[in-house]
């Protein structure tokens, strides 16, 4: 690999800067058109330090996240690839970690993965060979020790920056902060949380995290997301396990009415209010925006809440990919 591009490792630099870091999620391609990914990337590029690409979220098939991440890297974005244990055994995980790194992707969010029972192909065989914490340990072993799980040497070792997720809103609540500690023990270098709607519960979680000293061991980014409609809020509350959407928020969305502009405005306002409350919580390193299929909301949320990337955005038209783009925009 030649000299690394300035955007390569931008996420880690941002976390080290001490300023609040902003990341957001862009869904992976849902068709064979790379331009669709580029279009979404450009909507968020100037507002964030890094962009996550989820891995078959909710058990619904999309393009491999590392493929979309490689396109993001060509757009000058430092991508964070999601890697789940649902669809890959430990061999596939190791080869994907290495393969993603060859394409200029070093940030990996290690996840267990939503079960396929919630998706559109529930008849699939679940893999779950290893779990998310073991995956963090595998990525750490590859990068730090330069060894595969078998002990065989990787030459040269990949430059990985593994992270993990936390969900403060699912039982057992007392165990959740300890589980974050366990992920850090395994080698997680950053934590991104589930979407925060219940700020009170999140405050309790963070208080315990601070008591345990975990916030000083790892940067924690709070997940936030705008609600687009009452229906979407009710779906998240009733159909997405591990999500907590308090009723007052749903009532506010209902009061905003059915007109698209009105309800979207209200959804963004709620999101900005949550960010303002989260800003007061000590121990948070930044925010992770999850505008589910609504990437254009990222700019508006950042503008209203004053969130800015911790690192300066790369020059327009620059690429963070070590591979020359095969498909020019």
């Amino acid at each position, binding site marked *: 690999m030649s000299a690394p591009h300035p955007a390569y490792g931008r996420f880690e630099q941002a976390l080290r800067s001490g300023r609040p870091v902003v990341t957001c999620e862009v869904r992976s391609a849902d068709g064979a058109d790379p331009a669709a990914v580029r279009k979404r990337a450009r909507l968020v590029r100037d507002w964030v330090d890094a962009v996550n690409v989820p891995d078959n979220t909710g058990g619904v098939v999309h393009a491999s996240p590392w493929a979309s991440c490689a396109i993001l890297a060509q757009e000058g974005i430092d991508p964070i690839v999601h890697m789940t*244990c*649902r669809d890959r055994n*430990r061999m596939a995980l190791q080869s994907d970690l290495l393969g993603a790194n060859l394409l200029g992707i070093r940030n990996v969010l290690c996840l*267990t*993965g*939503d*079960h396929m*029972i*919630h998706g559109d192909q529930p008849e699939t065989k*679940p893999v*779950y*060979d*290893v*779990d*998310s*914490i*073991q995956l963090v*340990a*595998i990525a750490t072993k590859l990068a730090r020790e330069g060894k595969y*799980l078998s002990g065989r040497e990787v030459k040269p070792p990949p430059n990985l920056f593994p992270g993990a*997720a*936390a*969900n403060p809103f*699912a*039982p*057992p609540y*007392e*165990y959740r902060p*300890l*589980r974050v*500690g*366990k992920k850090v*023990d*395994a080698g997680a270098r950053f934590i991104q949380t*589930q979407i925060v709607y219940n700020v009170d519960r999140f405050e309790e979680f963070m208080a315990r995290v601070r008591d345990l000293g975990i916030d000083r061991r790892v940067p924690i980014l709070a997940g936030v997301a705008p609600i687009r409609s009452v229906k979407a809020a009710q779906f998240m509350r009733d159909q997405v*396990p*591990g999500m*907590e959407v308090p009723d007052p928020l749903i009532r506010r969305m209902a009061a905003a009415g059915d007109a698209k502009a009105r309800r979207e405005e209200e959804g963004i306002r709620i999101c900005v209010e949550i960010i303002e409350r989260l800003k007061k919580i000590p121990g948070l390193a930044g925010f992770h925006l999850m505008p589910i299929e609504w990437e254009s909301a990222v700019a508006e949320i950042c503008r209203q809440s004053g969130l800015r990337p911790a690192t300066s955005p790369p020059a327009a038209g620059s690429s963070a990919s070590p591979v020359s783009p095969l498909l020019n925009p």
Partner: protein
Amino acid sequence: MTTALENLPPAIAWFGRLLRRYPRAGRQLNRAAAPFENLTKVLMFGCNMCGQCILHETGMTCPMNCPKTLRDGPCGGVRMNGHCEVKPEMMCVWVKAERRSRWLPWREEILRVQEPLDWRLKGSSAILNMFSGPLLDERGRP
């Protein structure tokens, strides 16, 4: 599993060494013992015979009953009532494990990061595996 081996009482460590010296006999003994272990542990803990028991670290709750076979704690999909996201009628294995582990004097063990599972050992006796280490034949079977 190596840590368990180091801490065994001398008599058991000797027995483990004996099994390792005669691996064929060790495997036969393992096959003979597995059904008895299965019977008792299935009745008491709903064991799944993964062959690498960590019941004592998970509040005596078998983590292999989790539909995602998670050995390091609950996933993010646990329902508000503490039930499983995949099997809504079942209490989450890890909600039970966390609650029960509080009663155990060695409750911090639940925080240990587990090694990935050796799937070859499924169905074999975890107790003998702990004594002797995995005894695999030339085709990699227990």
